[in-house]
């Protein structure tokens, strides 16, 4: 039997909040671990009453969902937190937003709807927008068409064990090109899975099929995440919680 610290166990989780946040600007260079640390500290500064795990090494109850890669910005990162005291979700959102760095914006906070299932089950697809500075629509559009025309596109992906060949094509649900200010823009919807196909891999696929090489480092933004339905639409993963509404319990504490 593992040893436990003296004293009573920590208070249980009485409320789960689901949060959508954005990482923008300079903080696109933050890694998942960097953001996790920043979030934990911000929760403390904002004095959000977190629930903690038991044991000698108590950790706040936070579940992270698949993070955007280092270097990519995102408007749709998700995290779930467990509280030991019920709070008004909007108050938590505002307090957390104020406590986080300027380039991290807490966009939404909703209470987990009862019986709505896990948040992870509602996310299997990412919607990306990739700016390609110094590139024109005329260069990008045919490459995208070429990519979509293929059934198999093998690219070398950097993994912990060195480079590994993967087929990037099956994960690409849809892709299109548009023109931006001084850049071409790649819009691509990618199914999440293993191996994970990220914007870099899609660009590698474009290089493989059409010899497309951006002259400047691309800038990727994840615009949305959610579950892909039969119509090809990505559903907002917080919708079921909003519909379910908060369980009717005692008044919220203020944050």
């Amino acid at each position: 039997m593992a040893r436990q610290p003296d004293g009573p166990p920590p208070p249980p989780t009485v409320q789960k909040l689901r949060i959508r946040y954005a990482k923008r600007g300079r903080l696109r260079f933050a890694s998942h671990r960097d953001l996790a640390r920043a979030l934990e500290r911000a929760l403390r500064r904002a004095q959000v009453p977190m629930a903690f795990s038991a044991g000698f090494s108590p950790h706040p109850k936070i579940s992270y969902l698949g993070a955007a890669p280092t270097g990519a910005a995102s408007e749709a990162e998700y995290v779930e937190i467990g509280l030991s005291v019920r709070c008004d979700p909007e108050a938590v959102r505002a307090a957390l937003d104020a406590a986080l760095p300027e380039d991290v914006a807490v966009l939404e906070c909703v209470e987990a709807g009862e019986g709505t299932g896990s948040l992870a089950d509602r996310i299997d697809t990412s919607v990306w927008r990739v700016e390609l500075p110094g590139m024109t629509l005329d260069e990008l559009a045919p490459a995208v068409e070429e990519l979509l025309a293929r059934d198999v596109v093998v690219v070398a992906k950097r993994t912990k064990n060195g480079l590994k060949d993967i087929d990037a094509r099956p994960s690409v649900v849809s892709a299109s090109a548009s023109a931006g200010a001084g850049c071409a823009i790649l819009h691509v919807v990618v199914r999440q899975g293993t191996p994970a196909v990220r914007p870099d891999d899609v660009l590698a696929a474009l290089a493989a099929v059409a010899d497309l090489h951006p002259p400047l480092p691309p800038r990727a933004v994840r615009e949305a995440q959610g579950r892909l339905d039969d119509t090809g639409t990505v559903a907002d993963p917080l919708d079921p919680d909003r519909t379910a509404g908060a369980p009717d319990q005692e008044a919220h504490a203020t944050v």
Partner: protein
Amino acid sequence: MTAELRTTAGESLYPRLEPLLAQIQKPIQYVGGELNAQLKPWDAAAVHWALMYPDAYEVGLPNQGLMILYEVLNERADALAERTYAVWPDLAALMRANGVPQFTVDGHRSVADFDVLGVSFATELGYTNLLEALDLAGVPLHSVARDESHPVVVAGGHAAFNPEPVADFVDCAVLGDGEQAVGDITDVVKAWKAQGRPGGREELLARLARVDGVYVPRFYAVSYADDGVIASVSRTRDDVPAKVGKRTVMDLDEWPYPKTPLVPLAESVHERMSVEIFRGCTRGCRFCQAGMITRPVRERTITGIGSMVEQGLKATGYEEVGLLSLSSADHSEIGQLAKELADRYEGTNTGLSLPSTRVDAFNVTLANELSRNGRRSGLTFAPEGGSERIRRVINKTVSKEDLVRTVTTAYANGWTQVKLYFMCGLPTETDEDVLEIAELAVEVIRAGREASGRKDIRCTVSIGGFVPKPHTPFQWAAQAGAETIDHRLRVLRAKINEDRRIGRSIGLRYHDGKPGVIEGLLSRGDRRVGRVIERVWREGGRFDGWSEHFSYDRWVAAATEELAPFGVGLDWYTTRERTEHEILPWDHLDSGLDKEWLWDDWQDALSEEEVADCRWTPCYDCGVCPTMGTEIQIGPTGRSLLPIAPV
């Protein structure tokens, strides 16, 4: 750098840096914007400081000294301070290829635009990183080649007590506490600029040389005798001091910095907030440069510490507070402090920690209070020497029985991890002294298993090679060579593994002896060593504190070739014992310690005689207080911490 890429002073380089960041490892360390970082408008300040920690961001960011000066300077309306760190080779290559100079992380401003570049040297292994930063900044490496458009390069930190090896590269060195010195330097630079820079750089440096605690190497000439030792050090101007004394800040409660500690997004080596609970140490450990050069002991009061902890936690969101000093359990109010802080933060998962604990100052009550609200981490003790004999030599006396009893008590009270720090290569040391480390560790595990009734307790033995440092009684000692260190570590490891049933509970952490030899060269080196540093840098030497970047062979080859014309070499600087009256390269730099007292203490070490702490026994005349006009400031104050109102 090409002319068209030059920016106007103070302009942000970020737009040019950003595309490079997409191509490198850990770009977050270069973007700035940390919690509590400050960014002031360039033109609002009369004097601009770039503060550099010459190592990677993750090591440099938590540095307390730099954080303190950053705040102290930025509090002045007429000054601005930004931070810069050593750039990893992947980014450095891209910066050179794209003409992006060394930048600050706050405003991404070119370091060359600043009036002062302050570099904090905690260790001598950062010297090559200074040269790399100067080169990336487009600032001439050599002080003599700079003109009034270049920043004044100021060295600080403990290594600045012998800045001679970098004397060609720095313009000045500040000895001792920086809080007040940076203000004085700012005043001088501001006045000189306002007057239209009269007399150019030479005049500015001459004015700085008259600031208390500021040493300007170019105004001191060094000559050497035929046998290689220093023949004389003499002033080249009458208006600079013959001997430069260190700065000492008295009454630390009046300097409660950092008030708003920086919190990085990137991972750093210390994931906690630190509060310095006292400065200085008079325990008199003979190997310890920090304890010698930071005297006397100046405690912060319990209430002063309480308010720093409160303010700092609010400002950072950290969940652990390190109570920092050279020997934290020695604070006169430590027991009460730990208890009352634990009371204050009951139920908040806020842990307290001490860097390491003296065996003779440890008690379970204190350790329990420290971990009452937080994670219970391992305990660390630093006996430093393996045998009682060698512990008398280094003046860190604790009996084997006391050591085993203390560690066993910790195991019996639920701690399962204990770390023990030792040094290897101490003066007069033999294999037997080092082998006693193994006996001690075995005894600790045996007694610990019995006392705790558990098999899963662990003891980690961490060993560092001893490097003799300036301004210590061991400054005359012969350093043990790398082969000696490596041999002793080998026999120690074999001894620990003799009995696997015990040995598997003991971890051994050590580095080979080679980096210590180079650190030794740089620690006790003179101006001739500067050529070695420059050559190593030119041949690619960077990040010498990192084993994956450090090249012993490159250092040895450079030392051999650059020092041969002077008739000296690596061994001459390291494994050679100095004689009593040899002029040491730092003799004209005054830490307050009386050289005769240091020598007598060295002789006492050789005859294994101890000296007691002057906080509790009469003064032993080390010289610091009378020379510097300072005094010991310790409690107890009789005050206590009131609960803070819950929020």
